Structures are given as structure tokens and as C-alpha cells.
């Protein structure tokens, strides 16, 4: 797809040309920023070990397969792969635990499989609803959140439906 192939090169061109026009030392700045990236990854490393470990154990026990199998008859006629149900549910609670599940799915089915592509697309338009809401409202001590949850769920559901349809359409399954 055109957009997919051009996005990253175009971002590179825009940022570097804009930087040069504004007399930024682009190379030195890039190196400085890349250093920040190192710190970010090093900080998430322990979390990733913890969660990949938990998901790994869950997968090896056969529990994930059993759960998926139980969900299959329910999900079959909406065209939503039952392998993605645990991911979609986990996504509303914790983004790092979701990452663990996604990586497990990539390992089992491959990122270029139907479910692999569908998750990849789905992740960009969903968020950790419950986590985000509690953090943001807690800092300002709001108790009544009115229609925030409804709105967030509607947006997320729309995103999931769009991802499913787009995966089937774009990759021609």
C-alpha cells in the first residue's frame, strides 16, 4: 500500500529538511535523541521480562489455547479471530501485559498472518482505557466521570471493527 511504504521516508525528509532550514545541527541532535531512546528501552526492559515470562507460562500451560477454543464458536460468525479476544480485553487494562500477549501471538502465528496483521493494525487505534482514565482522573480527584467511559468504549469498538474490516480488505483474505 502506497501510504505504508511512503510514510517513514516522508517523515525523514520533512524533519531533516525542516531542521536544516532552521539551522539545526541535525546529526548531533539525532545522536542526542537516540541516546534518550536507549534510556527509554532500558527502563522498560524489566517490565518486558516480567510480562513475557507470565505470558510464556500461560501459553505453555495450554491455558491460552483452551480459552481461544472456548471462544471460537462465539466469535466465528462476526469474523473476529478468537485468538485476539484475550488481547482486546487485556488492552483496556494494561499496555505492557498486552505487549506480552502480542509478542506471543507473533511468535506463534507470525506477524504476517491474518491475526498478526489484524493485531498490528488494532493496536494503533486502541488504548488502555481503564488505566488511562484512572490515572488522569485520580490526579485531579474527580469521582464522577460522566460519559467518558461510554465515549472511550465507543471509539475503541469503532477502531476494532475498522481494523477487522481493513485487514480483510487490504490484505485480501
Amino acid at each position, binding site marked *: *500500500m502506497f*501510504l*505504508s511504504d511512503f*510514510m517513514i521516508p516522508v*517523515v*525523514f525528509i520533512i*524533519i531533516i529538511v525542516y*531542521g536544516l*532550514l532552521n539551522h*539545526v545541527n*541535525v546529526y548531533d541532535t539525532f545522536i*542526542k*535523541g537516540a541516546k*534518550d*531512546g536507549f534510556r527509554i*528501552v*532500558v527502563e522498560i*526492559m524489566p517490565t*518486558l*521480562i516480567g510480562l513475557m515470562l*507470565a*505470558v*510464556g507460562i*500461560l501459553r*505453555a*500451560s*495450554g*491455558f491460552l489455547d*483452551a480459552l481461544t477454543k472456548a471462544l471460537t464458536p462465539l466469535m466465528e460468525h462476526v469474523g473476529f479471530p478468537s485468538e485476539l479476544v484475550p488481547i482486546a480485553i487485556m488492552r483496556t487494562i*494494561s499496555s505492557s501485559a498486552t505487549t506480552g500477549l502480542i*509478542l506471543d501471538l*507473533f511468535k506463534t502465528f*507470525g506477524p504476517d498472518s491474518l491475526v498478526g*496483521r489484524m493485531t*498490528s*493494525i*488494532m*493496536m*494503533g*487505534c486502541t*488504548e488502555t482505557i481503564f488505566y488511562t*482514565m484512572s*490515572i*488522569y*482522573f485520580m490526579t*485531579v*480527584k*474527580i*469521582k464522577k466521570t460522566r*460519559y467518558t467511559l461510554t*465515549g*472511550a468504549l*465507543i*471509539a*475503541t469498538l*469503532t*477502531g476494532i471493527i*475498522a*481494523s477487522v474490516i481493513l485487514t480483510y480488505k*487490504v490484505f485480501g483474505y
Partner: protein
Amino acid sequence: MLNYLWAFMILIGIIYGAFNGRMQEITQAAIDSSKDAITLCITLVGVIAMWTGLMKIAERSGLIKKLTHKMKPFLRFLFPKIPERHPAMQYIATNIIANILGLGWAATPPGLKAMEKLQELNKDKTTASTAMCTFLIVNISSVQLISVNMLAYRSQYGSENPAEIIGPAIVATLFSTLAGIIFSKIMMKGYMR
């Protein structure tokens, strides 16, 4: 939350595995997944560093500031009741731009600041204001240009074209955000009457 979730996943796994005679597989998985996590981080560090490096240039050159500025008409549409020069607007814009550029870790601090500023404008301090509801719905529906992490994961697990999902992902994210905005706007009208 994560405390119980994590414990629950491991305990369920081990107990379920015990009944299925999968103890050896579980032991193997525990060792392998810890190892996998580090292998993955090596790919991740490369891709993330590439992105943060690029974004640093965007920040230094004033490109991010310019984009934030460009958000103004859109924010006026979303938050008609917030005064135009109110600091909340600046924080909301920074938060949204950081989310769009896939800089999740840079989005939260201005996001929380925005909530504080919105709280100052709020009359009932325990109930979310309309602006807060709109802000969180838009934030959660998060428009994202490129999910860099996803590209790293995909390439780590041998995707032939890790970037092939960028286009459809942008379309999907636009749909979810649009749904969030429409819903917020409808609710906003309902409460004004």
C-alpha cells in the same frame, strides 16, 4: 492492578499446566521468555533510538511547536468553552501531538498538566467537566501516525514487510478518533440545553 494480574497469569498458568502435565514446557517457557525479552529489546532499542533521534530534530527545529500551534482551530472546535489563551489549551495540544507522533512516554506529563488546568476551570470539583470528558475520549481514541514499537516487534519476529500495516493502521485510528469526536460533540450539545 498489574500486581494481581501478573500473579494471576503465572499462578493460573502453573496450576493449569500441572493438571495437563505440562511442567517441563512451563519450565522451558520461563527460561525462554526471559531470554526472548532481552533479544527483543535489542531490536527495540535500535528502532526506538532511531525514532527518538529523529523526533529530537523535530523538537529542536521548532517543528513540533509549529504543529502544536496548527492544532489551535481544531482545539477551539473541540473545546469551545475554554478561553483561547488558557494554558490548558497548550498542554492539550502538546499531549495530542506527542500521541500522534508515537511518543507515548512524552504525552502523559502534559496530559496530566492539562487535567489540572481543566480542573481550575471546573465548577464542581468532584465531577468531570465536559472539556475533561472530551479530552479523555480523544486521548484514549489516540490518533497515531506510526506505531514504532509495533514495527520493531514485527521485524523482530520476521515480518517480510514490517511497515505494511502503517496505512491501514492510520485509517483505523482515524475512524476510532472520529467516532470519539462525534460522540463527544453529541453529548456536549445534550448538556448545553
